[in-house]
């Protein structure tokens, strides 16, 4: 599918990555327009259900980004988030949901160029993987359908 444009949702923290993304713009660095940025108070505030909901609502890839360890505005939000992500990643791996579609990164407010790079690599990777239909189509399958198929 050559005309496939991936939809990527970025959940970012207000204090580092959002400011970093701002810097990317003010520095006039060009990057993929496929990304929709959602600003959060802290990475520790990003619930894993939001990721599942965005996949369900048509996202093909997700970026989650916050302050580097020890740089958190609330001192420990990103450490808590890190533990949660470790567990979430293990669960996703076990359930067969492809972690290649989710990028976790630390991007600080001074790393405008790095943000562009994170977005570009993620979009390129998701473009290769194609639309995430295997997750989205599940909304139409349930037990009744299976019984009639048999």
């Amino acid at each position: 599918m050559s005309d496939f444009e991936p939809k990527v949702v970025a959940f970012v923290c207000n204090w580092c990555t959002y400011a970093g993304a701002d810097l990317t713009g003010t520095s006039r660095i060009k990057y993929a327009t496929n990304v929709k940025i959602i600003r959060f108070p802290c990475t520790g505030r990003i619930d894993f259900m939001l990721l599942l909901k965005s996949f369900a609502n048509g996202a093909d890839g997700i970026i989650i980004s916050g302050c580097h360890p020890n740089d958190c505005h609330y001192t420990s939000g990103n450490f808590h988030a890190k533990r949660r992500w470790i567990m979430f990643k293990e669960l996703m791996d076990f359930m067969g949901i492809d972690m290649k579609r989710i990028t976790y990164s630390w991007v600080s407010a001074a790393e405008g160029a790095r943000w562009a790079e994170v977005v570009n690599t993620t979009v390129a990777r998701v473009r290769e993987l194609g639309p995430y239909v295997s997750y989205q189509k599940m909304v139409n399958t349930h037990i009744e359908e299976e019984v009639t198929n048999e």
Partner: protein
Amino acid sequence: MSNIAAKAKELLESKAVQVVIGYEAGPTGVVRPAFITDAAKADSLIYNENCVQNLAMYLTKHEVKHIGKMGIVATLPVMRSIMMLISEQQVVPENIVVLGIAEDGKLLDIADMNVMHSHIEKSNLGNPTKDQEKLAELNKLSIEERFKFWEQEMSKCIKCYACRQSCPMCYCIRCSTDCNQPQWIPVQSNTQGNMDWHILRAMHLAGRCISCGECGRACPVNIPCHLLTMQLSDQAYNYFKVHAGTSVDMKSVMSTFEPNDKESFII
């Protein structure tokens, strides 16, 4: 009269407890949970290899809790559940008398939580062998095969929430599933929503699951949902070296952190 019945009778007669939670044979011979409040009826308490239900789930239920002090027939998973509930401030140790049962079915003398702690420490804290084998088998599959497996399993789910009800760690009075602002989990059964529910459940039990396998046993459509939480309790040990339910002052895995937690996927 079995040792358990004798001990229960003694506890009830001396008013050390007001209710003993144990197992009895129902009218058809099927084992069912029993709540004995009368010393004369303590004889009906039994213990055999069919007594597998995790009774710790009843410790947090209002209907049982308000009777008074509780005695509970406890195998290893139940003891670990009790430890976990104490560490999360859901039960008060003074309100519980444990009628511990060793792996060979013999009655243990558990005088207090320190004795229980040392008994748990001596035991095997991993997942049950049968489940561990299934986990290893699934982990060997490719990611697409695993997705297929779970997609197939999740399509069966009828959203009865028996997995939640049977779990001693799922004690929230208001579950996020019961809330509709926002509606995280759709009410109707479809594979995607079912998968969302099982992911939510496993994540909320991450580092708290004590590997009793009760959720899988309770499931009316035989979804092996206990494998999800067991995989995470395995990983919680791998990453953070914590076994859930081993001490009364255990720190919750997901609400604490170490600055040097190791991971390899954050760029």
